[in-house]
């Protein structure tokens, strides 16, 4: 405000009272004083609108003239031309309209005076009297009409239930949390390759290998295939048996360095599958939780709180890898009553060292 030409001559305060400085100095635009400039601005606006018209015509022309094939390059060309012509069609109108308003339309400053917000005293008194009369008339403020009062309060109080009951009833769909505790794995289920479902032989899994595993028979399910897959996915890893620290109580859960863990992160359930062969670290792509596969998949970094559940495996007569049982704890993120009804796991994480976390 200090650079305002008018305010340099007009004091803002007189005897401590604020003085309305009035409107700033009106600076005419070039188009206001120079007819040539006005003519030029008019032409500029017309050219901008003309660009829009050309853009629209070009857009329609591209649409009809396109010879689009399956080739990515051809799709990219058509998309690019359509986008560019649509851009010109829109931006021409927009910039043209603004340029018109800025250079040619009236630019006189306008003042809208404020008026007092308060109503007159008579109006205020009348409004209060109306409310009082209404309350008196209804009988709600006296002991009359108790039946009407009671029924009204009841009606208003229970009306929201018409909306709330169906809402709450639909929430979550199924409240049976016991289905979280079980997956498709059971004794003797073969471990199969994701996605084709062929079973895996122990001899297929060479040291350093990672197999993405689904239970055999999952692909044959007719209902709930994705739900079952989401719970049952497993990562099968083989490392040098000397590098693998078997966890107390789980000594016979792996086979000659072949070990299987749930692929569902114990934090919020992302698929944990970024396996680093040399460090035996397993990384979750969502929040960087890192599990040490060589040490019971214990958490060495990130927000996850629990090790990944291990799937006990064995090898059957034909050499295929099979599950010994289902997981011994629910897979995936924590939820209420998670460990209800399960046998307590031996706490293994504390007894082993070797992870360079």
């Amino acid at each position: 405000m200090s650079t305002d030409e008018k305010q340099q001559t007009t004091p803002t305060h007189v005897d401590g009272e604020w003085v309305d400085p009035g409107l700033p100095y009106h600076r005419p635009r070039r188009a206001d004083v120079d007819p040539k400039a006005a003519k030029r601005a008019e032409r500029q606006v017309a050219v901008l609108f003309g660009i829009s018209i050309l853009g629209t015509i070009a857009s329609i022309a591209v649409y009809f003239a396109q010879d689009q094939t399956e080739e990515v390059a051809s799709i990219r060309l058509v998309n690019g031309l359509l986008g560019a012509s649509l851009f010109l069609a829109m931006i021409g109108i927009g910039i043209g309209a603004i340029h018109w308003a800025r250079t040619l339309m009236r630019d006189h400053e306008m003042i809208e005076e404020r008026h007092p917000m308060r109503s007159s005293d008579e109006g205020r008194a009348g409004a209060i009297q109306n409310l009082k009369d209404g309350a008196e008339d209804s009988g709600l403020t006296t002991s009359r009409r108790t039946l009407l009062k009671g029924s009204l309060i009841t009606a208003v109080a229970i009306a929201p239930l018409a909306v709330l009951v169906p809402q709450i009833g639909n929430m979550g769909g199924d409240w049976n949390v016991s289905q979280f505790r079980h997956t498709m794995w059971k004794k003797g289920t073969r471990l199969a390759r994701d996605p084709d479902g062929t079973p895996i032989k122990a001899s297929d899994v060479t040291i350093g290998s990672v197999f993405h595993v689904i239970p055999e028979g999952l692909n044959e399910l007719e209902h709930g295939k994705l739900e079952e897959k989401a719970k049952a996915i497993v990562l099968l890893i083989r490392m040098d048996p000397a590098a693998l620290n078997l966890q107390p109580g789980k000594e016979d859960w792996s086979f000659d360095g072949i070990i299987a863990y749930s692929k569902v992160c114990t934090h919020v359930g992302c698929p944990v599958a970024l396996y680093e062969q040399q460090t035996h670290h397993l990384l979750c792509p969502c929040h960087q939780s890192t599990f040490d596969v060589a040490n019971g998949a214990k958490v060495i970094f990130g927000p996850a709180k629990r090790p990944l559940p291990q799937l006990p495996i064995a090898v059957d007569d034909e050499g295929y890898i099979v599950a010994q049982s289902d997981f011994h704890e629910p897979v995936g993120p924590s939820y209420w009553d998670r460990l209800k009804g399960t046998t307590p796991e031996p706490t293994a994480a504390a007894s082993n060292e070797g992870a360079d976390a």
Partner: protein
Amino acid sequence: MNALARRRYSKSAPVILVLMLLAALTAIGFAASGSPAKASTATANDVAEGQKLFAANCASCHGMDAQGTEGVAPSLIGVGAAAVNFQVGTGRMPAQQSGPQVQAKRPQFAQPQIDQLAAYVASLGEGPAVPTAEMVDPALGDPAVGMEIFRTNCAMCHGSIGGGGALTQGKFAPNLWSTSNTHIFEAMLVGPQSMPVFNDANITPENKRNIIAYLDFQKQGSPGGLPLGSIGPVAEGFWGWLVALGLIIASTVYVGARAS
């Protein structure tokens, strides 16, 4: 608003700023091209020449008999010709320096020398061989099948279209667009560095070729829009916040400014 209109800064400043950002962001994400490799049959002479090359260039870490050095370099007995062709052919070996991950660089040997080295290492113990040109020909593979296999086994580290991604503690999965088809095949076979092994029992040779076909398909580029390195929400968010928001601010200043 009057104050804003009367400030005599350059009105083109926001536009220039946005253009500079556009130029800087567009420049991100270009990589050098890889070198092709082909299979060849090794002779006794190749093995002898390879042994000389090995003694001169590799033995200081891997040992004179390629038995490895504890804590420094692994044994190369049984890694096969494929591992040598990948490691030396992508320039990862001889390693420039130790670090979280040995990185690809310009190959230090010509292909005939790489073949001799591979022949020597292959003579030490049985291991995966260098694939033939037919085994890695993307024209013979099915990109749609390859996509399914890639999505299950590779995408978590290398990204859904092979753009690469970060691992832990400075390690990363490289992008695969400039890697030669032979090297992609060999990497699956031998599992270099952090990468796990995907042997032929896990991903069949046909499916490996399908994966190569899928990755080769990505070289056609994106059908629309800027890929921004195809590394996901970080680059896209960066673009949205800086460029899109910058354009909105610039147009707001333009609309609000007074004409001269």
